[in-house]
């Protein structure tokens, strides 16, 4: 299991992802600086959360022009698995590797708390297969721009294709996202963008261990 963690100036969940993957896979992931242009042979590329380039201009917009993005695109076109969490999700929508966009939380505030996300019935994907649809995972969020938006036609397509990976519970949507969407898959199911932080519910001192389940399942699926 070879995992790359892409680090941009302003990434701040890189170490957290590193610790989570190390703990679960018993293998050391590799940090990839955003200026590197040659990343090959990884089973999974993770784009961690943070405030890349200060989130100036637009969240993820500047990072999506970093040199490393070309290699990430190449990895995607080979059908490689990519996980973008929080700011990583924003970068994936900015690069158009995932549809839609993430705008300011409807309450216009940064929000950080635990909540439940519900695993959806999706197209085949290493990120969701292995979970029974409607499984609840308790995972914290921490974001200011997590309000996922796509227009009506695209939303229909997402639903039809089974690209919605996670939803917030009805009435507990923290950011106003369309259809309570918390995570979205690419058309081939190999790329996931999600706002909640599974790396923050992995260790016994965390409030929940559901993030551990998420990573365990992902690693099993990728290795099988």
């Amino acid at each position, binding site marked *: 299991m070879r995992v790359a963690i892409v680090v941009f100036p302003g990434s701040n969940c890189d170490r957290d992802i590193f610790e989570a993957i190390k703990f679960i896979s018993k293998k050391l992931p590799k940090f990839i600086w955003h200026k590197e242009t040659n990343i090959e042979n990884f089973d999974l590329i993770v784009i961690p959360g943070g405030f890349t380039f200060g989130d100036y201009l637009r969240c993820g917009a500047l990072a999506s022009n970093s040199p490393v993005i070309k290699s990430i695109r190449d990895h995607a076109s080979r059908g490689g698995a990519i996980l973008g969490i929080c700011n990583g999700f924003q970068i994936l929508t900015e690069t158009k590797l995932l549809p839609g966009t993430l705008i300011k939380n409807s309450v216009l505030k940064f929000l950080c708390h635990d909540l439940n996300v519900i695993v959806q019935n999706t197209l085949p994907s290493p990120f969701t297969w292995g979970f029974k649809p409607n499984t609840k995972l308790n995972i914290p969020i*921490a974001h200011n721009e997590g309000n996922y938006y796509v227009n009506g036609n695209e939303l229909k397509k997402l639903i039809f294709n089974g690209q919605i990976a996670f939803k917030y519970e009805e009435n507990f949507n923290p950011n106003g996202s369309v259809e309570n969407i918390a995570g979205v898959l690419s058309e081939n199911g190999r790329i996931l963008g999600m706002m909640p932080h599974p790396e923050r519910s992995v260790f016994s001192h965390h409030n929940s261990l559901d993030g551990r389940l998420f990573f365990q399942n992902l690693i099993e699926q990728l290795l099988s």
Partner: protein
Amino acid sequence: MMKKNINNECTLDQAMEMGLTEEEFKLICKKIGKTPNFTETGICSAMFSEHCSYKSSKKWLKTLPTSGDYVIQGPGENAGIIDIGDNQAIVFKIESHNHPSFIDPYQGAATGVGGILRDVFTMGARPIALMNVLRFGEISNPLTNHLLSGVVKGIGGYGNCIGIPTIGGETNFNQSYNSNILVNAMAIGLVKKNKIFYSAASGIGNPVIYVGAKTGRDGIHGATMASAEFSDDTESQKPTVQVGDPFTGKLLLEACLELMKTDLILSIQDMGAAGLTSSSVEMASKGNVGIKIDLDEIPLREKNMSSYEIMLSESQERMLMILKKGAEDDAKKIFKKWDLDFAVIGKIINEKKIILKKENKIVCNLPLDFLVNDSPELSREYVIETSSKILDNKNIIKKESIKSIIYKIIKNENFASKKWIYEQYDSSVMGDTISIGNKSDASIVKVHNSEKGEFKGKAVAISTDCNSKYILNDPIEGGKITVAEAARNLIVSGAKPLAVTNNLNFGNPEKKEIMGQIVGSIKGIKEACEELYTPVVSGNVSLYNETNGKSILPTPVIGMVGVIDDIEKIIFMNAKNNETLFIVGQDENKFDGFLQSSLYQEIFCDDFLGQVPPINLKKEKQLYDFITKLNDNNIINSAHDISDGGLLPCMIEMLLLYKLGININLPPRIKTPNKENLLFLHGWLFGEDQSRIIISTNKPDELMEFSKSENIKIYCIGKTNNTGVVEIPKYDSICINKCLDLYNNTIPNLFS
């Protein structure tokens, strides 16, 4: 005005405009043997400002205990450092950003966070947690909502972006802060004991390096602003507020820590208050050397900045470093990687002077010893005022039921949950957060990677406290209580209290009674810190917190840090079903309770003047040892300090999470309702007697035995049940769901 005569001799009027007194200006002229020019006067005035020189408080601060077996660094550096074993140390400090936050709440608060983080990572530590202590005016003041929203967004804006969890603190409201809010930010960092960096410059000829963001005109002479009272033209001071850039802060953090892994760097200091002036002066004087700087080499953001502006700018995210000779190129590579400015701006010289050159002219030549050692130390007159008022039966509210009183206390803005605030902070980034002060009385972060095999790791616990009512009514006793409450919060979380950082926020020290608050509370803090073995290792003083002559409540904030040797010994505050609740430390014969200075008095009586609950520090210490012993013997299931609001509100806090009920066992004297007994009843339920802790246990017999053998008083309140109703037999029933609703929704309803 500035540019024309900047190299000419400064006039007395100009010096006074910069905040110097006539006396100080004359002293400067005499000591340096010339009349200083404008730039030199600016530098002297910044170094002599209250903010940099602590001139009003120095005499008293010196009396605080600052040493201990585990103290690695006491006051006088960028931050204090304590040893927590395993070659690890904790670096921490609290600092105020009060005046800027009132003028520009977002930037003021954000740069407060940025500044305190730099104080910690400049010592080689990776910051692991942020705390903040906030004071706002009354809720009904239209400015309060604007200030609170701005400050909370600013704290989050910086802390969230830089990726350090904000894990606790406290927020209070009182009309005395209407025009002068308090924003005190505390940062805690973790460092390897053999990789600590200090600020003392060394090595004649070694290069002086400027790194970080460029210098602009923001925050010029901010240290002086922070040392003056506000008046109605505060708006005009906006340009003196610094502007923060957390992204650059993050890059600077990573670049500095990367550089510190090498052996290229000798010493480093943050350019904080009074910017390049205080950093260069302090680094050189601590190292007993001199410093020569070429101002033409400083990376500037704006054109045509004068030497005065460059030296007094408080632009953020800048550091001053001394490198080893020849290390410049390798160090530069690291800063280039992080896209930060890196400039060799001068060198260390033998002569103990600060010499500044601009356009090939010497624009400043001042002796260093004078700037640091001869800064004034004042013996201001003071009078310690105390209140002797006692509440009696006629002050007690008779019309309201217990139920109605408790609901009003819970929904009071100073008691209700501050979740609405702290959910706007990223509290879980870095993955080590254990409690953000909602699960335990202290905030707790795990020491990263401290687990080994079966051992689950150790943790750092932090508590910030200040009860201004106590300080106002009796500065000395109030000072003691503030320290004791912080320590108690650590003890009931399973931590061992180690050391203190303090932030002394007061009004104008030129007034005798304000100076009395300062002197008195320092006396109290000193006594408590000595008795409880918690030396003061860092701190900050913020004076002149007044607007149009009206002072804030005295607010000497204590930030205490402790260690938890095994995270499995952490005590949380929520009781579970079928546990027995005890008050530990309660003398059952003394059930009349202490209502003076209480939250009860604040809400239901006309004022909160009154005596302060007495505290016996020896008994307090015994209580700590007892609780620790109980915890070692696995007798405690949960614990909570009895503080603001008294017994009933604090007990209800323990029942909220699992929505429990309890049938309260009342002391004999109040078992039967009787109008004459109302004072005792309310005193027992809402009095704020000190040195008491509520614990829940499944081993009441063992607890009773321990209490006998250790001679600690305990009182059994009753057993928790799952009815969700708190029964006070023959008086009232309280609904926990209603309490929970008021507790959680009061603040959102006020501010959303």
